[in-house]
């Protein structure tokens, strides 16, 4: 039962997110392609320095109970 509730909650959050995301499409004034010079700068993207992120996430996941959140994939380790 507990599991079912957790799953339901996650599903609800997911659908809410999708609905919000979609409705956001029709809100506000759209940023035009010629206004995206700043957004193209590396520090404005969510990617970042892959090797730095790799080290940092690995260290945190071996010292703290929480991990993940930003993406999928990447292997596990015996460190936690």
């Amino acid at each position: 039962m507990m599991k079912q509730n957790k799953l339901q909650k996650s599903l609800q959050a997911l659908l809410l997110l999708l609905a919000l995301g979609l409705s956001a499409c029709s809100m506000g004034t759209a940023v035009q392609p010629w206004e995206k010079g700043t957004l193209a700068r590396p520090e404005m993207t969510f990617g970042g320095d892959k090797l730095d992120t790799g080290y940092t996430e690995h260290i945190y996941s071996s010292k703290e109970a929480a991990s993940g959140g930003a993406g999928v994939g990447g292997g596990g380790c015996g460190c936690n």
Partner: protein
Amino acid sequence: MRSKSNKSSALLGTALATAAMMLPSVQFASADVAPERGIISFKYLNYQEHQGALGTSVATPGPAVSENHDVETEIEHKNESHNHNEGAVWVNLVSGASALPTATPSVLTPSSVSSTTGSTAADRISVNAYSIMAMVPIAGKWSLATTFISDSVSGASPIYHTSGLTHMTDSRSVVDAQLTRYFPSGNVAVGTSYSKESDYLSRSYSLQGSLSTEDKNTTFTLGGSITNDTITPKSLSNVTETKNIYAALIGVTRVLSKNDIVQINVGYSKGEGYYSDPYKYYDKRPDKRNNTTVMGRWNHHFEGSDGTARTSYRYYTDTFGIKAHTLEGEYVQPLGNGLTVAPLLRLYTQNEADFYIATSAAEQAEPRLVTTPSLSAVYYSLDQRLSAFGAVTLGLKVSKQLGPDWLVDGKVEFYEQRSEWALSGHADKALAPFSARSIQLGISREF
């Protein structure tokens, strides 16, 4: 009134209806373009942990014992038998003898650690690692990225709470590859990862796709991964354990203005298999661990200073009973001549796992008296990483662009973890504060 399931199906209906209404006006178009240039990067990491001696270190000098993986043979016996008395068990850290019927652990004292490694009593694990990443664009529609990481780990590690130091060494190699296909309306990426340690093998496969709206201001991302781990504890001969993890992530990235971009990701992961730590005292964890993460990120560019604030918040919850909050901020400031500095601050807090066993009064008075779980306990762990704590990271990254092709960077980070900094849960105040320092040095070239 509606029942809970009715409510959720109503919500589902609403969401689907909203989605359906929106879809005709959403023209999916170019999400991402294939990279024009390739890149090759190298990065070195040096990492050193420390742990203060808050009544947890044993002052008596003793003989140095290395290779804890041999030592732990006996510890695992104890985990299996679990036929201890309630209260505390005396562990003789000096001679290796123990009052436990089946256990004879030989444990390093801080002084013997220092005599063997030349480090100080507070030093714990140290890591030296290097990694190489290469990405090549293929035919304007594809890209292939591959990463290789190699690290060597050595030093003293506690086997219960913050006590019972044993010396360990290990090395790890990781290879991963990701192939991405770019379409006019988005991209699809497949990835694989292979990680090997002397006692742990992990294979992972992932698939991720993203779609953007015509104005490219909104991007939806959906991803999934499967991870298969094989654990062969050195403490147990002829024993092979497995762990399988299935994960999914859904995300929305939205351009809010020419200076603001936000992202929300929701992740769910379902894991089954061996979660215990075979190298720790009294460690028996559930064989299922499911977690949910919600992460929000916001990057804002300041036109006045030309700097960029990168902020993120993550909520994590799992079936071990852990709830954790992570708040991170980084400020990237270009200084001219290709020089950029980026200070960062990270705040973290978690409560303890449902089955975490806090340090008993007896162990607080005498660290060699290991706290034992109650006989009725099905799951138990004395691992400090499953206790309630808070942590702070302070860091600074400096990078310098050299001409159009080369980039060099350096980063230093200081991390401190303390039980009294936990914002929720029951802090086990007998745990010694933990700290770490890391240095990264990198160089990369575009071609």
